[in-house]
């Protein structure tokens, strides 16, 4: 079991993910530099938070063309589990692996707090350790986390059970309180909250452990 952790210039949660995986859960990991193309031996890939390439133009817009992500798309299309956290979620929407887009928070403030989420795992492989309707506490830290999707597309996601995580108290103006979206196949999850920061008891909570541990079983 080895986790690939994508590192762009400007990523800043790559080490948090490594600590959560290796330090808290005993999952081995390997960094994938943005120019790497070798995903051999990896069982899953995480695109961590941060400000990839400075997030110029739009969040995730430049990262979309990174060589490593061309391989991640192939990996995902072959059924490999891919997780995008915060900036990683923005990258997955720019890539087209997940529908919708993340836009500026409604109130314009950067939000940094603990968020309460309700989970509806459906067929999402990353969330199989949680029960339907369970309440989770993950930290959030973002300025552009307002999920946006065309009005006629949201009911499609709802009907497919792809809206897998919702805020109890919407912190950014996301449509339908969306905090996380899974693809229809169940192997690609994107979320604005940070499960990797809810893995070490020293930081206040371990609700995120089961998300990363889903890979073990």
């Amino acid at each position, binding site marked *: 079991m080895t986790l690939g952790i994508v590192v762009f210039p400007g990523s800043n949660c790559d080490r948090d993910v490594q600590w959560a995986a290796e330090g808290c859960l005993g999952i081995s990991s390997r960094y994938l530099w943005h120019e790497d193309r070798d995903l051999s031996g990896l069982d899953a890939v995480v695109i961590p938070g941060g400000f990839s390439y400075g997030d110029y133009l739009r969040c995730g817009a430049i990262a979309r063309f990174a060589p490593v992500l061309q391989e991640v798309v192939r990996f995902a299309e072959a059924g490999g589990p891919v997780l995008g956290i915060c900036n990683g979620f923005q990258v997955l929407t720019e890539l087209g692996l997940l529908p919708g887009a993340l836009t500026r928070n409604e109130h314009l403030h950067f939000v940094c707090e603990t968020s309460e989420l309700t989970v509806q795992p459906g067929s999402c492989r990353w969330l199989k350790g949680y029960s339907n309707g369970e309440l989770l506490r993950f930290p959030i830290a973002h300025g552009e986390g307002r999920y*946006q999707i065309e009005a006629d597309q949201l009911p499609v996601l709802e009907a497919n059970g792809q809206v897998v995580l919702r805020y109890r108290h919407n912190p950014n*103006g996301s449509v339908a309180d969306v905090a996380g979206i899974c693809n229809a196949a169940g192997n690609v999850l994107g979320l604005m909250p940070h499960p990797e920061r809810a893995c070490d008891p020293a930081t206040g909570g371990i609700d995120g452990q089961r998300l990363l541990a889903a890979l073990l079983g």
Partner: protein
Amino acid sequence: MPLYRARVLVSLRPSVLDPAGEATRAAAGRLGVSAIQRLRIGKAVEVELEADSLDGARAQLELLSDRLLANPVIENWALEQLEPATAEA
């Protein structure tokens, strides 16, 4: 190859909330300009590129705008200006 100069305007789609535009509208009111009914913030991207013809330049700009400069989920784009670059400019 001849040089062309273009400007691409990227704007938020009408259905997408523009919090920065709303904040700017509020500030305009404090300046005393209070009659503004609508204010939306976009991006103007100035491009100079070489192409074999005007049509060739347009084709490259359309690809650039559609695939990189704008995200069609939330943004529209328009090719505002496309002309041969003059020597003095």
